[in-house]
């Protein structure tokens, strides 16, 4: 059976990372254009068949939904013991009563962990470092390549000690 690591490695060889396929390869259902409350970015829920489903708000731009999907996937990877029937994240990526799955088990520290992992999933350190070493050092170009904002790319480069 494929592991999270193997699937992550498989999808981390080229930019932009295909986060949708990564989710599906893990056996998780995906609705990336879900009709959700405007205050909700996305959610992950446990279905009747014991499978998980990740949904991202259809009203948000695709780039933002990419981060939402990565964030929910990070919850699946890191906090499967806390998800229960499900959890949702508002626009600030915090569990909220406005959504379908308010989950008080998920605390701010868990959201922080999910954000960090989501950033790593969308911009894998190994891949970014390899590109950087090959000479691709234009912030704007790199941001476009990974389909993230310039600010996000700047953070990743700083995190990896490249900028």
């Amino acid at each position: 059976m494929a592991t999270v690591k193997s699937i992550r490695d498989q999808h981390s060889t080229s930019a932009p990372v295909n986060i949708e396929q990564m989710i599906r390869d893990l056996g998780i259902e995906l609705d990336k254009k879900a009709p959700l409350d405007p205050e909700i970015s996305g959610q992950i829920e446990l279905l009747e068949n014991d499978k998980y489903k990740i949904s991202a708000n259809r009203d948000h731009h695709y780039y933002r939904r990419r981060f939402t999907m990565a964030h929910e996937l990070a919850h699946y990877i890191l906090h499967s013991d806390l998800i229960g029937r499900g959890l949702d994240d508002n626009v600030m990526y915090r569990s909220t009563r406005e959504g379908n799955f308010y989950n008080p088990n998920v605390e701010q520290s868990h959201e922080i962990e999910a954000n960090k992992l989501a950033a790593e999933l969308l911009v894998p350190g190994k891949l970014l470092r390899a590109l950087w070493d090959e000479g691709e050092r234009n912030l704007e170009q790199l941001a476009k390549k990974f389909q993230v904002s310039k600010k996000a790319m700047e953070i990743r480069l700083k995190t990896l000690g490249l900028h």
Partner: protein
Amino acid sequence: MMKTTAIILLCSINAVAIVGLLYFLFVFWDPLMNGGFIIIDNEFVDGKDSVAFAGEIGRLDTISLLVAYLGLFLIVFTIGSIWYSHHDARNAAQAVAEKQAKDYISDEFKDDLSKLLVGNPEAFRTAIRRGLRNDRVLLEEIVKDILEEIGHIPSQRTDESISEAFSTFDEDELAEGGDDGDR
């Protein structure tokens, strides 16, 4: 901690042994014999076993006490042995695991990060513990978090900065993409 437990265990065994010995002296030492012990004459014993003899002189309680002491000693000794062998096996396993983890870190991480980690036992143990708990082997990220937490490297990001940066885009950035039809 383990040293303290071993000392306590040893002291307990010795204490029980000393109490047993003192009781033995109390029972069998005869002041009328100028410091000598009660001598059991073979004729007097007349083929009786020690229990029958003890019964005759009314000292079965001594036999019971000695048997109880022997039982207690065996129990304590057995527990001690099990504890010691368990401790020994765990140490051996820990040494192997530690070596493998260090090799892994040296191979996978950049030199400066692996040196920092391997040279800091607290960070190293925390990294391994979290890595094992998570089972997803994003160890480099985990290690960086730990090193940030313990102040070995300056914190370069905050939670707000990550979620905000990854979910907020300029107009021109948004204009670039958005086509996810093929995924």
